[in-house]
């Protein structure tokens, strides 16, 4: 446990110098989306024939989706190139493992740090949501945790994958064929049930749809029995991913 804290402290020292760059990605960009889509597109919808999406104003519908999708994107970005650098290019982990730290400490530190980062970003975005009046219940606060968990549900398996790679080509493919399509079709901008049956099925296989559905119902104060399923899927992805990452990173760094 203390080993993980040392790794976390390392990341904090690095972050002191690099935080400015990451603020845009994890904060400014989702707010731009919220403003453009929520007010722009939302304005059109509110004057149209249906006026609402699944019974919610478009802004209220959209905001929790963006909260969770942003965490997904951060989880992806943070576990591809930066982890590759620490494994292979800068060999930071090799330096760490020449000390009492173990692979497990490194992983716990990285995931702990990531959870903290996702938490900070999500809290900041959540405050904007409150400001825009899209949070209708105290339960909405829990949506922040859902976002963190969704981020980890992507980050853990992706890190496990990164640890097996020697080149970076697959990272762009993950972005293009998994993250971006999910962002667009995973229930963030419009309800999944509008999609063809097959695509719906695929969407529900991924953590994003579950994270978005859960965060959305929480932000309007609804806690349906389906929440347990959503939570279980997210936890399963995160847990299996962490287990896999432990195996692949150990294989990569300790021979």
């Amino acid at each position, binding site marked *: 446990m203390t080993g993980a804290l040392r790794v976390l402290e*390392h990341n904090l020292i690095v972050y002191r110098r690099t935080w400015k760059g990451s603020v845009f990605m994890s904060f400014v960009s989702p707010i731009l989306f919220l403003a453009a889509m929520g007010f722009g597109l939302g304005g059109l919808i509110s004057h149209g024939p249906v006026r609402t999406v699944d019974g919610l104003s478009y802004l209220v519908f959209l905001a929790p989706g963006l909260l969770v999708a942003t965490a997904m994107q951060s989880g992806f970005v943070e576990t591809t190139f930066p982890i590759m650098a620490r494994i292979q290019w800068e060999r930071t982990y090799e330096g760490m493992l*020449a*000390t009492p730290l173990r692979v497990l400490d490194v992983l716990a530190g990285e995931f702990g740090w990531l959870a903290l980062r996702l938490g900070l970003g999500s809290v900041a975005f959540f405050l904007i949501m409150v400001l825009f009046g899209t949070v209708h219940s105290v339960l909405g606060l829990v949506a922040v945790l859902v976002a963190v968990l969704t981020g980890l549900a992507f980050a853990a398996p992706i890190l496990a994958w990164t640890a097996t790679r020697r080149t970076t080509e697959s990272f762009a493919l993950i972005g293009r064929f998994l993250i971006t399509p999910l962002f667009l079709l995973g229930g963030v901008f419009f309800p999944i049930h509008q999609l063809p049956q097959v695509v719906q099925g695929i969407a529900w296989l991924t953590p994003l749809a579950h994270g978005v559905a859960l965060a959305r119902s929480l932000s309007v104060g609804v806690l349906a029995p389906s929440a347990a399923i959503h939570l279980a899927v997210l936890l399963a992805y995160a847990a299996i991913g962490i287990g896999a990452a432990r195996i692949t990173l150990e294989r990569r760094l300790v021979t």
Partner: protein
Amino acid sequence: MRMIGCVSTASGGTLRVLGMDPVADGPRIRARLGVVPQSDTLDTELLVDENIFTYARYFGIRREVARRRAEELLDFVQLRDRAHDRVELLSGGMKRRLTIARALVNEPELLLLDEPTTGLDPQARHLVWDRLYRLKQQGVTIVLTTHYMDEAEQLCDRLVVMDKAKIVAFGSPRSLIDRYSSREVLELRFAIDATPALDKLDGLADRIEALPDRVLLYTNDGEGAADAVHSRGLRPESTLVRRSTLEDVFLRLTGRSLVE
């Protein structure tokens, strides 16, 4: 080296480091080791002094102690004025010194160095040698690998010559020279195509070695052998008498053909 550093498991035999089993006690052993790997693993996301500070933290050293050690160690490797620079801005020799400083942060009992001066300019090499010699004087056990025989001669009390993963000789630099080479070496260089038949040099040395560009005579009396060469009517373009070195030992033991 990786096995002693407890990041690779032994492929055979038994290994004990500081009396402990690397498989069972990896973290406890590593807490008392300093490791300087073949290529630097400095943290380029951190500044020079932060590299030592965070490394100290990995060992669980308290923050104020870590800060103080970072300063002391930067003094020790003469990098104090670069403390707040980015690592990429350092030269190769500076990075090497920083790696050594970082490896010393836990005051290790055993320091592992994998080719510590490969690729460094002469000034930087001598500085590294000087610092390693001081550590040796302070009682730190140093295990180093090197391809530079002068480095081995300078720093090692005991050395092991390895060839194709086998130990071919073992001893102090002096004893290896005594055992595998002569006291002196006479180097003769002849004009191209004028190298005499080796039998003309018969009996002038303990061992004679003909290379494409010169002939080496291993003998205890280089000057005497040179005189004898001249008295046999041979006229080399140049003659050089030098002391035998570990390099002679190494080449004799492992051969002159390239090891790829």
